[in-house]
């Protein structure tokens, strides 16, 4: 029982990341009809937004402390972040400690801007070209973005810790009446799951309950008619691209404490999130979320030792196997609509 609960929880955080990236991907499919291979790169840019913010907050000046000496006998140089100098060690220190959540505020405008620039600058010219061309040009863009990040930040993973308050593990088993220490789970992963649920909810609410969202949904169903009604649907779709980029970016920001970001993290997630989108059904938002969590949980169950002893290696291939089976039995994916990406 507790093992099952633990594996489900383990699946949730990976599943959250898959779901968020796939949500953005499928949003772009559904609105613009573009296959965006650079979406993983957006995830990575988001993660590096967090790295940048934490570096900016940590900018410090050096002072010489005459009362202490280092091991060579020279006066000790003490590094003090500017923030601590300005706001005092308590508030300034807290700001630095909370750099990852703070990065969200900075990442949103940056990601929306990156999304706009990508759509207006490049992808706009590829609406009429075949899907293969779209895949190829965004694949090239992904390589370029990745290399640019590598040039500025180096090839090594950069650890970016979570705030101290959210670092440890929580004993979840006690909450539901199990023995203590039966289900121990890192707090940040719970935060990540909650954050993902919040974002998914926000995107759905935005599409469902605002006039803007209604127009976008109408445009997804029948772009031409909406255009004939005198609505500038292209502009709204561009904004949706920006939102999709922001969703991927935020997924990246919050993922940094779980896995130290490096320049190819985007590519690693890209393949899997494409599989997720296809399993969920191209252009279907609930499908992407459902498939994301489903595959994340399946993956974590497959990596249980009990399962692995029966079917060795199953944890490595479970996602792909599920994808292949679903694509062959339900060609439109779990919740795919008719007529999306079928030619």
């Amino acid at each position, binding site marked *: 029982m507790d093992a099952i609960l633990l594996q489900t929880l383990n699946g949730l955080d990976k599943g959250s990341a898959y779901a968020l990236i796939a949500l953005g991907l499928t949003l772009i499919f559904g609105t613009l009809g573009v296959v965006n291979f650079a979406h993983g790169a957006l995830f990575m840019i988001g993660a590096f937004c967090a790295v940048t913010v934490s570096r900016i907050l940590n900018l410090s000046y050096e002072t010489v402390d005459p009362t202490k000496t280092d091991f060579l006998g020279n006066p000790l140089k003490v590094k003090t972040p500017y923030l601590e100098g300005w706001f005092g060690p308590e508030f300034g220190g807290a700001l630095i400690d909370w750099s990852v959540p703070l990065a969200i505020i900075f990442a949103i405008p940056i990601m929306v801007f990156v999304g706009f620039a990508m759509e207006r600058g490049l992808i706009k010219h590829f609406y009429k070209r075949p899907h293969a061309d779209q895949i190829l040009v965004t694949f090239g863009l992904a390589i370029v973005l990745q290399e640019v990040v590598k040039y500025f930040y180096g090839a090594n993973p950069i650890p970016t810790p979570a705030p101290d308050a959210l670092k440890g593990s929580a004993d979840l088993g006690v909450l539901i009446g199990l023995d203590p220490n039966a289900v121990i789970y890192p707090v940040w992963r719970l935060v990540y799951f909650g954050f993902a649920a919040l974002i998914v909810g926000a995107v759905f609410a935005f599409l469902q309950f605002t006039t803007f969202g209604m127009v976008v949904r109408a445009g997804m169903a029948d772009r031409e008619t909406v255009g004939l009604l005198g609505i500038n649907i292209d502009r709204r779709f561009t904004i949706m691209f920006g939102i999709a980029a922001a969703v991927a970016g935020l997924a990246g920001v919050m993922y940094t404490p779980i896995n130290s970001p490096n320049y190819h993290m985007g590519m690693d997630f890209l393949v899997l999130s494409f599989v997720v989108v296809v399993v969920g059904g191209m252009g279907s938002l609930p499908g992407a979320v459902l498939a994301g969590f489903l595959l994340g949980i399946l993956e974590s169950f497959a990596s249980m030792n009990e399962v692995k002893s029966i079917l060795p290696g199953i944890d490595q291939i479970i996602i792909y196997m599920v994808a*292949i089976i679903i694509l062959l039995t339900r060609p439109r994916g779990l919740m795919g609509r008719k007529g999306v990406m079928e030619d």
Partner: protein
Amino acid sequence: MLGLNKKDTSLLLIVAGLALFAPFLLNPFPADSGLAQFNAGYPDLMQRFVIFGIFAIGFNILFGLTGYLSFGHAAFLGVGSYCVVWMYKLVDYNVIWGLPLAIVVSALFSLLIGFVSLRRSGIYFSILTLAFAQMSFNLAYSVLTPITNGETGLQVYSNDPQVLLGATEPNAPHLFGIVMNQSKTLSMGAWEFTFNNGYYFCAVILMVVFYLAIRIFRSPFGMMLRAVKTNQTRMNYTGLSPRPYTLAAFVISGMYAGLAGGLMAAMDPLAGAERMQWTASGEVVLMTILGGAGTLLGPVLGAGFIKYFENIFSKINDGVLHSWFSFLPDGMENLLVGIVHPFVGKGWHLTLGLLFMAVVIFLPGGLMEGGERLKKRFSKTPEVKDPEHRPEDKPHVAE
């Protein structure tokens, strides 16, 4: 000649000539001059040109003709390599055992993957092949370690059976005694030319498979494949099922990939799982597009282009840059070096990505189309607007 028309014969002869004289052509600079770093006439690089050329020719038969974009061809490359190394381990170092096996096994493997993947088309097909390739890669890394030797990579150990290994046989990959990694050097004044056995072995195979590719392109079968790309619905209505044709194309290109993988192991008796990773499939896609998908010569050009610049660009470091721009005043020199620095050396992939994007955006036909455009600009013959006499699209009444 050989059932080819005049134009194709000359194309084949050009390729044969290029391959035969590559050690000369690729070494235009004297060995001790400053430009010697642009020479590409050393065995390792020439072998890679040819092997990736074969890989790209095969990929082009699928992608160029049918338009099915596979992101999983690296899997067949890896399978080919593993087969050849296994034959080294079991029989002996003669490549004649491994290469046919590599082709057969990759054919079976691609038959299996193709049979499943080709039920879907477009983006779904790409994802399915990607999924299969990643699956093979993950398996080769983890569970299949007894067969693939996992992370270490498969190689020949002294306690392997090697049942046919005679006392006089060379202890490296060879073809009936001709050792692959042996070369002869010819010095002519300041120039030095290297003739490598392995390179010529690959070059002969390249010529054979290039000839086969020409025949496929010109055959009724090739016509069918083009029909799949142009209009599958119309093909269905004509009473033809596209599936057998696409599957055949998939298997053929898988065999080419397996052969290329086998040749890799024939040049260097190693096989690693990283050859199967999807980025390796991405690379062959880049080569084919860069050279020109759907053309005969394009993929070979693209493969050569990428491998050449990968090698040359990644060797250029700051020191080299400084020596180039040393004729400028210091400030200018440092500025120029600073500008160029991110694009060379370790940053070569940035250049590749930018170049690739530029090709997809401005020259969808790749280098071949670029060449055609240049030729048109400089020749005086009037442009033939519609060489295939396609009927013009009539606008719909409602539009």
